[in-house]
């Protein structure tokens, strides 16, 4: 079926069957390969993109359901986190990196909005400090098999300041 997606600020038309995931639509139909496939079942976070500013796993989203939403992929990201990742060596192979960056952008917004995490001591104390433990808890949906977790946390902390 013919659908229209808004991606990184522009409208893209494509012909997909209803079972095509947003992830496959991006990678296979639109050539936006910055968003990665690591498991195709919501377990690794490599496919994280922003839908209206909120982080989602594109592999668990059907493309047809995201018509009318503003999708941001790594190709549309221009954020201080990107340079911070390079400075703190928050990656090695780079495969999980687009997902980590998109996830971190979404996570920073969630924290700003006062959303608690499992690491939050008092649910009422919204907007508390984003310390290492909070960042690690909130980023745990994004796997990095190279083990660059220390650098990623440093990059996020640097930018969150």
């Amino acid at each position, binding site marked *: 079926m013919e659908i229209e997606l808004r991606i990184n600020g522009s409208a893209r038309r494509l012909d997909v069957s209803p079972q095509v995931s947003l992830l496959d639509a991006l990678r296979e139909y639109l050539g936006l390969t910055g968003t990665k496939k690591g498991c195709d*079942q919501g377990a690794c976070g490599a496919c994280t993109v922003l839908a209206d500013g909120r982080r989602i796993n594109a592999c668990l989203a059907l493309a047809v359901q995201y018509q009318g939403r503003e999708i941001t992929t790594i190709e549309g990201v221009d954020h201080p986190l990107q340079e911070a990742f390079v400075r703190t*060596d928050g990656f*090695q192979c780079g495969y999980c990196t687009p997902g980590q960056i998109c996830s971190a952008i979404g996570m920073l917004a969630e924290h700003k909005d006062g959303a608690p995490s499992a690491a939050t001591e008092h649910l009422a104390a919204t907007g508390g400090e984003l310390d290492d433990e909070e960042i690690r808890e909130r980023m745990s949906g994004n*796997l990095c*098999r*190279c*083990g660059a977790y*220390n650098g990623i946390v440093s990059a996020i902390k640097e930018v969150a300041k």
Partner: protein
Amino acid sequence: MTTIGQPLDRVDGGVKTTGAAKFAAEHFYPGLTHAVLVHATISRGRITALHTDEASAVPGVVAVLTHLNAPPLKPAPKPGAFNLTVMFSGTSVNYLQSDEVHWEGQPIAVVVAETSAAAREAAALVRAEYTVTKSVVDFEGSEQDARPQPNNPLLPRGAKKGDAEAALKAAPVSLDLRYTTPPQNHNALELHATTANWDGDRLTVYDATQAIDWFRTHLALRFGVPRTNVRVLAPFVGGAFGGKSAIWPGTILAVMAARATDRPVRLVLSRESVYRTVGGRTPSIQRVALGADRDGRLTSLIHTSITRTGPIGGPFEQVTAASQHLYAAENILARHDLVSLDLLPNTFMRAPGEAIGTFAVESAIDELACELGMDPIELRMRNETAVDPIGGRKKFSHRRLRELYALGAERFDWHERNPEPRSTRDGRWLVGTGVATAFHRALTLPVNVTVRLSADGGVLVRCGFHEMGMGAATAQAQITADALGVPFDAVRVEYGDSALPLGPFAGASAQTASVAAGVVQACEELKQTLKSMARKTGGGTNEEILRRAKVPHVEAVVGSDTRLGRIAGRARFLPNFLLDAQRWVKAASGVHFCEVKVDAETGETRVSRWAGVFDIGRVINPKTAASQMRGGIVMGLGLAMAEETLVDPRTGRIMNPSLAEYHVPVHADIPPIDVSFLDDPDPKMPLGILGAGEVSTAGVGAAVANAVHHATGKRVRDLPITLDKLL
């Protein structure tokens, strides 16, 4: 100013943080099709019927290849000890060439379709019928059938010194312990992927590989075309850890599908297909027995292992490799035994042998320290050795374990600990600390390199090496800049393409040192050329020399990519390699200091503090090297605390082939990891580099197990250390 030793940012940081870096599944061709594998659901037998009509009828399906209609494929070349290029076929099975099934998960069909969704849908509709033959798939149940591992000149063997069994019996203090480790999978985040395109009998393949040249040679042999007709590109590899060094069925079948359909094919394995068609780490059953006098001097060290192989392949695992070099025991016995199972062959996984072998031996040393009432570092220092314990003749090119222990103990405040197990509490948490040694043999491989200096001052380094996250291009640019005395930014490095001069495979922690040797040699030759040009033209800067000589560039070439040149390279390499191995033990080493907190009620274990100190020889880039150390430790923490591939002992089926059910460390599991280096060049390695890829994974399992014992008083000898084992 030298650039070696500077913590420079990676040269590929920009493309990796913007999504511009293209991995193997991200190269497009007009008319590109998508392929998906169908797996056998029995471990041994024959296919009696394959029903593919429903699959073929799915809109968009281009072909369903099975053993009944697949084009011919030459059998996998037999491994030869002296021809590395064909050694590493993942299995010896000739895919889709017969009705035989050799393992649960073997590809029995490939569906090719216009979209990946159509291919997946159709693959799920292929049905097979089988006759089942008896298979042996239970590792632990086969223990009594273990046989000695045959010798291979290129791999560490067992060892014998004195009579270790008799010395064990006579020792005033002795332990005889059994350790086990489960199968594990690499789980590089990038799924194995191949994009294959035939143009007549010329083949271009983008593949997630850490062994471009092996893939090229192997594909040429299997598909019966000259090697020069095959080009393999891997500009970026999304993690590998050993899982992308052998040639597995996905690559072969993608190339076959492209040939059969006369269309470009992309085959991205699903995560489940990775588990079913790409081997992982062998499980192991290990015995470590230690005999000592009351002062802690080892009189006997026995380390034996049982790992698995099978009729269709699987390399040996050098489980006792570290144990043979760590301690000055009077009597030593190291032995490797194998059981043969009808499973997907195992393969190299980060620090093969050492990762699991050090878990056993470094746990046992800790157990002996407890038995003796001695600090475990003191026990190790009493058994520290200046010569290789086996034979007593070979020297260590470099051995700094005393300095490593001293530095690490200081950074970690080791001596603050109360040695009594279960003596420290922090609220509901039992707190413990543990220590263990890391050790990994160093190696170099033959490489060809060209270095070109242009009249504009730019330098181009070309070598077909691999970037899987190590920061390989960054390190080689630093080495080149210093060797030629040019700015770092003037150097550009091309890699990841078989059209470039022959690079080494990226494994055995050998790539950086191997390429460095070639780069340094090429730069020296280039400087000689410039010097003789300067004599004729009157000197000046490099740019001035080239301008006055009216040449656009000068180039130095190390090695030759012709067939003769490659044979000559191997002929130079092997005698040197074997001679060197008789004279020196070269190894990277390190020490891990770990603190854990164990919930006294639930057994939940958190790693709360970590310090690692390492001797990897000269450190080219402390920023990327520290990342590699941390990465190795994180993988070791997975091995220690979570990772286990569950194989059904009745059917041989992997039961948890996904990242949801096979647990790797996540952000929340990893505390800040303190890493430091001695940064002391090894006198016998190129530029003093000992290799950084694997050493930090070794020893991690034992450091955690020892800390858990200190926290709880419970000794876990069977990995992973999950909470059920602490209740």
